[in-house]
C-alpha cells in the first residue's frame, strides 16, 4: 500500500487500534524510515495527545502527590498526628547534639538519620492504613495458605471486592539482587492480572497491598519471582497460588 492509502490510519495506529493489513503496512513504512509516514505519525501522536487532554477536568486527591513521591522513594507524607511530636523530638535532638558535642557535622548526620527514619515510618504508616482499610472492610473475606507446611511460604489473604487484596506472608526468602516478588490475581479461565511488586523483609515476612476493585471472576491469588521492573505475565513457577473463588461474592 502507498502512503496516501495509509494516511487515514495513522491515528488508529497511534492508539493501537489499526486493523490489518494497514497496521503491518504502516509498520513496514516506518521500519524503512518512510518520511511521509513518519511525519504522518508525528501529527497523529500530537492529535492523540490533544484528544487525551480534552478529557473532562478532574482533580485528584491531595495525597496522590505524596503517594507518587513516596513510591519513588522521595519525600515524606505529611499530616499524621504524631508528626509534630516527631518534629519536636528532632529539634530537641538537634539542640542536644549542638550543646553536647558542638560539632555541626555530627548534627547534620543525626538529622539525616532521623529524617530517613521518619520517611520510612511515614511510608509504612501509609501502607498500614491501606491494609487496615481492607482488613476492616465490610465485604472483606480471609483465606489462609501454606498451613501445615514445614517450609515457606505461609500466610493469609484478605480480599475485599470493593477495595483490593492484602497479602500477609511469612517464610518468604529474600529475593536475589534485581528480582522482586510480583502478585497476580488470576480470573477463572483468564490471563493473570498484575497486582503489584513487593519485597520480603530480612526475617522473611512480607505485607503487600493491591488497591482497587477485585475482578468478580477472580479465582486465584499467586506470587511469582520476577525482574524487579515487573512483567506483564508470569515467567516463573508461582511460589504459591491460593484459591479465592467463593470468597469474592
Amino acid at each position: 500500500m502507498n502512503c496516501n492509502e495509509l494516511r487515514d490510519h495513522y491515528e488508529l495506529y497511534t492508539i493501537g487500534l489499526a486493523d490489518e493489513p494497514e497496521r503491518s503496512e504502516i509498520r513496514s513504512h516506518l521500519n524503512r524510515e518512510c518520511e511521509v509516514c513518519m511525519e504522518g505519525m508525528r501529527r497523529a501522536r500530537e492529535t492523540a495527545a490533544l484528544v487525551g487532554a480534552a478529557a473532562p477536568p478532574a482533580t485528584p486527591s491531595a495525597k496522590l502527590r505524596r503517594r507518587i513521591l513516596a513510591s519513588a522513594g522521595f519525600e515524606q507524607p505529611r499530616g499524621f498526628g504524631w508528626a509534630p511530636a516527631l518534629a519536636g523530638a528532632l529539634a530537641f535532638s538537634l539542640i542536644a547534639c549542638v550543646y553536647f558535642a558542638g560539632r555541626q557535622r555530627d548534627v547534620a548526620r543525626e538529622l539525616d538519620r532521623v529524617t530517613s527514619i521518619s520517611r520510612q515510618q511515614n511510608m509504612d504508616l501509609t501502607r498500614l492504613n491501606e491494609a487496615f482499610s481492607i482488613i476492616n472492610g465490610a465485604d472483606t473475606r480471609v483465606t489462609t495458605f501454606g498451613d501445615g507446611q514445614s517450609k515457606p511460604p505461609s500466610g493469609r489473604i484478605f480480599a475485599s471486592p470493593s477495595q483490593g487484596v492484602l497479602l500477609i506472608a511469612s517464610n518468604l526468602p529474600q529475593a536475589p539482587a534485581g528480582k522482586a516478588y510480583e502478585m497476580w490475581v488470576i480470573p477463572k479461565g483468564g490471563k493473570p492480572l498484575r497486582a503489584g511488586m513487593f519485597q520480603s523483609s530480612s526475617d522473611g515476612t512480607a505485607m503487600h497491598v493491591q488497591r482497587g476493585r477485585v475482578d468478580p471472576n477472580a479465582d486465584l491469588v499467586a506470587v511469582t519471582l520476577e525482574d524487579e521492573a515487573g512483567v506483564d505475565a508470569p515467567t516463573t513457577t508461582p511460589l504459591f497460588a491460593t484459591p479465592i473463588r467463593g470468597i469474592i461474592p
Partner: protein
Amino acid sequence: MMLLPILMAVQIRADDSGLVARMQRRDPQALAELYDRYGAVTYSLILRVVRDTGIAEDLVQETFLRVWNRVSGFDAQKGSIGPWLLAVARNRAIDYLRSAGGRERNAVEYEETDHPSLYCDMEKDILASDKARKVKSAIDKLPANYRQVIELAYFEGLSQTEMAARMGQPLGTVKTWVRTALKNLRDELAVVSV
C-alpha cells in the same frame, strides 16, 4: 457541555527540557514538578477511561513511576514530555479496562506506541497551545455519531469491529464515521498550523 477545557490545568511554568534533564539526573524535585504540571491532566484522562477515582489514582501513580523509570530514553532537547506522559497514561488505563473487561490485551502495541523515542519534534508546550483549544472545540462540534466513535476509540480503546458491535452498526458505516471524524480533527489542526 459534555467536555470542559482542562487545558488551563496544564501549568507550564518553565521549559520542559530542563525538567527532563533534571529527571534524568534523578532529581526528586523534578518528579514533583512533573506531577505539578501534568498530574491533573493525567488524572482527568485516566478517570475518563476507567471512571473510578481510586483506580484512576493507582494508574496515575503507575504512569508517573513508568515515566520516571524510563526517562533516560527520552531526548531532553527534542522530546515532548506532555504527549508522552499522556500516551503512557492512556495505555495504562486502556490496558486496565481491557483486563478488567476480559478483553484481549495488546501490550506489544502499547509498548510500540508509548516508547519515549517517538515523542520528538513536537510543538513545545503543545498541550497548552492554540491547537489544543481547536481540537477540543472540533470534538465538541462533531455530529453525535462521529464524536461517539472518537470517544470509543480514544477513551475506551475499542477497535472498529468492537465499535460496530457496541453501536449496532455495520462495520463499513463505523469505518466511514471514524475516517470522517479523524479527518475533521486533522483539518482543524492543519488550519491552526498554517
